[in-house]
């Protein structure tokens, strides 16, 4: 049988780990606070969401191996004034910022100094690679952490942003 996988989000100091059903950018180190802690349009310059840590997890063991993990978008993030950026890190570092206002920028403040790149540039033909693999009989975290962060400009508009589709791809033997 094929392994059951999920995508997990890590938050907090410990960290706490949640299986993602709704990945929501916000201005708090929280998994999904609903409409609390919305992103805030800057008066000038940029504001940020708190960065998020995501990873691919094996909920049960593959028969053989899971490897070759990729991440990508459909090439378009249709959020006016908001750029979704992603990078990879090996080690978790709790998100920081001013709660309710802005997160700290990930590259400058995350201990792993992730190179944050516009997610729209990662497509099926040019995905982001995440290192990591898992072999039978192990379960648990497979990939590096994917760091996600929204960057808001003064062009941002009020209201809920449409959901965007992001994809993880992996190989399993």
């Amino acid at each position, binding site marked *: *049988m*094929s392994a059951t*996988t*999920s*995508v997990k989000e890590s938050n907090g100091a410990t960290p706490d780990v949640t*299986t*993602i*059903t*709704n*990945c929501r950018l916000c201005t708090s180190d929280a998994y999904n606070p609903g409409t609390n802690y919305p992103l805030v349009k800057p008066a000038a310059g940029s504001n940020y969401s708190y960065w998020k840590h*995501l990873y691919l997890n094996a909920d049960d063991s593959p*028969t*053989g*191996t899971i*490897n*070759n993990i990729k991440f990508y978008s459909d090439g378009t993030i249709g959020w006016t004034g908001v750029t979704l950026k992603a990078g990879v890190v090996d080690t978790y570092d709790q998100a920081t910022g001013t709660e309710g206002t802005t997160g700290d920028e990930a590259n400058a403040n995350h201990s792993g100094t992730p190179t944050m790149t516009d997610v729209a540039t990662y497509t*099926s*033909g040019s995905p982001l690679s995440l290192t990591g*693999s898992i072999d*039978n009989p192990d379960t648990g975290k497979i990939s590096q952490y994917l760091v996600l962060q929204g960057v808001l400009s003064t062009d941002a508009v009020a209201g809920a942003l449409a959901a965007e*589709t*992001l*994809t*993880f*791809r*992996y*190989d*399993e*033997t």
Partner: protein
Amino acid sequence: MANKKVSLIEGNANLKELSWIAFYNDGNKLSKFNDDGSENRYEDIDRGRLVRFSLCDNETPVFTIHLTSGQSLIYRKRVWARVDGTVWHFIYIVGWRQKIYNQKGQVRELAYIAYVNPTGVVEISNDINDIQLVKCEVLK
């Protein structure tokens, strides 16, 4: 053969899972699933005796490759999942790779990789860099 980028972007997770059967040179075979429902691993295939490998819909082969001496089998299932964990597509990758030595002892590597979509579409590539080899696939 030119490299070919895989274009299987649009997907459908309501696809039928395929099994596999490894056929040996002595007439025996190893199926992914035994009659009692237990499962054999791809890594359990005896590559020294392997002459044919089939993807199967139940017991019916739907895609088969024949292997000659020196060709190392490649097989895996490629899975696409949303961030919410929903699997929205998968395909099967079957092929082989082989090292070829010339008279000066120089080596080059050949590969044949088929991307088998359970809908019936098959794409062929020789781009070995699209996969990460597992231990049993590493050529000596």
